[in-house]
């Protein structure tokens, strides 16, 4: 990697003033160090956010707060979170390996960059890295998106984003002098049409915490990978709903690793609202969600996996 300056400010203002557009925030380092070692990113300054106040806590309440510096392991092992938001805990448990989960943070997981093997290759200047071509379009796209609004087909791979989207979480971001509360769709919206971004955050925008409303909803997360553990999801799915007798209310179903954003379809939510979950209802919800899927040369297998996961994740909600 190229040489860089390392600073560890104690205030959010300090962190933002140091990062500018030539630096990068640094917490667990799992994502940024990988990019730096491959010369994909060469920030002049790494601004550690590990010392920032009020970013390490998990606080229960009507709305739970999870600080940006909370590690994935802490989420995985938190008894209250497991009880209240089982889908979030299941998503955390599938991240990387125990070693990675011990270091990786909530903020880093949400803001991580593409894992596309063209984007991550040291000698490929792809569209996302400022080149002119998405190599995956004509190349080996077995791990790529079924849905996108732009020429880049690399999908979002944050497990937490998928679960948090289902839970209607808000991501509190420091943007300039203000704090902004972004929904998960807001957090990734720009990646839908802009090939060069991974999310909607600007270079000086800093994730401070996540807030999850506790509305008594059941939640679940599942993924399928090629290996049993320590592997990226081929497709992931999170769902949440109030289970009212036999009926589902306030339903969310979200797919991961199939689009540059956590993929939701409003029509599917509307369809499921107030319905009793049967095989036919789950199948119909899948059809609505997957209607616009566009299979590329090598990723058509993701469609049946998505269908199975939607079904199984919904099923898990009603137990």
């Amino acid at each position: 990697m190229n040489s860089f300056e390392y600073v560890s400010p104690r205030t959010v203002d300090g962190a933002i003033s140091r990062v500018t557009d030539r630096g990068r925030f640094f917490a667990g380092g799992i994502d940024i160090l990988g990019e730096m070692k491959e010369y994909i990113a060469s920030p002049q300054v790494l601004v550690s956010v590990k010392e920032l106040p009020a970013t390490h806590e998990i606080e229960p309440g009507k709305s739970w707060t999870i600080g940006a510096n909370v590690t994935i392991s802490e989420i995985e092992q938190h008894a209250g979170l497991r009880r209240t938001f089982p889908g979030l805990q299941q998503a955390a448990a599938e991240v990387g390996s125990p070693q990675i989960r011990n270091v990786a943070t909530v903020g880093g997981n949400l803001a991580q960059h593409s894992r596309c093997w063209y984007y991550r290759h040291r000698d490929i200047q792809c569209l996302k890295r400022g080149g002119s071509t998405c190599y995956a379009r004509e190349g080996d796209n077995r791990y790529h998106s079924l849905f996108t609004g732009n020429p880049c087909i690399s999908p979002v791979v944050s497990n937490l984003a998928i679960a948090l989207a289902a839970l209607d979480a808000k991501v509190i971001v420091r943007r300039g002098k203000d704090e902004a509360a972004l929904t998960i769709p807001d957090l990734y919206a720009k990646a839908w049409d802009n090939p060069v971004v991974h999310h909607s955050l600007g270079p000086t925008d800093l994730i401070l915490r996540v807030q999850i409303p506790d509305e008594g909803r059941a939640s679940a997360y599942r993924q399928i990978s090629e290996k049993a553990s320590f592997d990226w999801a081929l497709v992931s799915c999170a769902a949440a709903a109030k289970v009212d007798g036999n009926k589902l209310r306030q339903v969310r179903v979200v797919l991961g690793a199939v689009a540059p954003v956590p993929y939701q379809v409003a029509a599917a939510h509307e369809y499921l609202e107030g319905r009793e979950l049967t095989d036919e209802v789950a199948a119909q919800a899948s059809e609505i969600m997957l209607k616009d899927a566009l299979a590329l040369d090598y990723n058509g297998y993701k469609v049946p996996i998505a269908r199975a996961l939607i079904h199984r994740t919904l099923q898990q909600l009603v137990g």
Partner: protein
Amino acid sequence: MPSWPAKPTVVGASTTRVDATAAVTGAAKYSSDIQTGGWLYGMIFRSRWPAAHVTKVNVDKARQVPGIKAAVVEREGERTVRFYGEELAAVAGVSKQACLDALRAISVEATPLPFVVKEEVAKKPDAPRVWPDAPNLAEPNVKEQGDVDKAFAEAAAVVEGFFTTAVQIHHPLEPHGNTVSVTNDGVTCWASTQGIFSVREGLASYLDVSQEKVRVITEHMGGGFGAKFGPGSEGGLAARLSQAAGAPVKLMLTRFDQALAVGNRPSSFQRIRLGAGADGKLVAFDMDAFGTAGFGAGAASAGGGGGAGFPAPYIYTVPNIRVKQASVAINAGQGRAFRAPGHPVASFGMESILDELAVKLKMDPVEIRLKNDPSEVRRREYEIGADRFGWKRKYKPPGSTTGPVKVGVGCGGATWGGGGRGSQAEAQINPDGSLEIRCGTQDLGTGTHTVVAVVAAEVFGLKPGQITVKIGDTRFPPSGASGGSTTAASVCPAIFDACTNALQRLQEAAGVADARGANWTSACKKLGVNPLTVHGEWREGLSSRGAGGVQFAEVEVDTETGFVKVRKILCVQDCGLVVNKLTCETQIQGGIIMGLGYALYEERVMDSTTGFVLNPNFETYKLPGFADVPDIEVILMEMPERGVIGVGEPCTIPTASAIANAVANALGVRVCSLPVTPARVLAALGKAVKPGGSV
């Protein structure tokens, strides 16, 4: 002829590795741990083109990078590069970062050339040529016997299939590399190698110095699997950097380098037709196959068992056969011997088509093997294994599980040569009763230190922990390279001979009838001041060649997601005289886990547009983790009368075949390509959406 004791006490027992504590505490210094005084880091600069005409490689600016002590060009003058990752230059410096900076300061003048990285494209006549003077597709090797067409015409059942296997990259956990120190007094090389004497020969010839000037040391190393016989270009470059810098240079490859340039198991594309009589006896076999061993296959071969050919119809005897095999060159890293070269490839095609035939004839897969396998040993193993595995209870017609998660079983067999050859050793008995066994072999991590101690302990009536084992140094009596599952069968007889001779000499010198066990210390004391050093060598009668093995697999396949979970692998392995039961079984387990990777995960992915390897890391080149490893049961079929036989290779051969057959049995349709991924399972089931298709 010498023979092993009829009732051994140490040989055949389970002995914990004598170096276990050292290995887990870090006291054992692996080749990559060596930090000899004043050492420098070395790194290689590689081609960024899959094919190019290179006119100049300029390392001047690299030399000026702070901390850099030497930079060398791999080959002077103009040259053609033929794969992404080909070595062009190397640098040595005081830190890893200095070397990385220096690599970025190297400039190359080159004209890119057309290239091809996919076998199916490369074999077309109009494809870009890897070697200008020869088509990529070499002339096939053709083997024909009997009257194939007539036999097919008269066969009661004929099945046909097209099977493919992926390129499997060599990824030993310790990467390739050496620390080389070149001085006026001579050359010392700490190598991560399978053959210290082959490294010595290679370095002496590369540097044009006499072999007695070169010393190679490999005390502990982290795996080779067929890819670490010589010094490699990394060894040669380290030596030149050491010469230029006047300091030892440690040049260990990175994981990225490993994916490109240290060798691999060639791919295969096998079209097979198989015919049998109504009784299931095979009558006709017809195969047309090709595969790639990388850039070397079209003209000069990388050699050493790294070619794309493989034995066919593998372990079976078929009276009428026609086999056509060709190698196709592509712009990619070369094939190299890889744990049982050719055999897992051969096994996958043959065992798959054989199961198809069994299904067509409504025969039990084990029955059809008992009927056709010419090896009496394997037929016994199938019977032992089937019984233990519960085959009769578990085997159901293909696809008969109800529900989305289907269960299936499969099996397959293997053969391997192995066997011993000339190895020498010496035993030094000291007057205080301590003793040293020296042998110029090397421990690949399979437990050679321990089997040496076990054999010596057996002869002297001592415990393995009382023996000091000195191996991995070219100053010790020569032994062969560790390849072809020959190490135990070569080394153990030499140790046995040296120790038997030493015991006899000790008894003569000390004037005692039996110096073993309880008499040991008092007998040694009678030697006076000088130790006794006695030579020994490999002798006929203590080892033999030829090892058969069979494996059974039980899998569950999720037909909605394509995910395959292997529940159980059972292996029955012919192993002659077991020297150390513990390391014998664990080596077999390791072979099975490697076979599991070949079956389900491992595949070098080449990109047609760039010519690059797309998965040069363990994130996307997938290896089994503990969560993927099934229940493994190893049954050793001991035949002590045969002496020592190697088991390192046969145990990895049939795993993928057995798993693929189990998947086919579960699904009722066959995935004809390795690795068996969720994508391929769903495609075989007709569930994957076609390109451009919608839901």
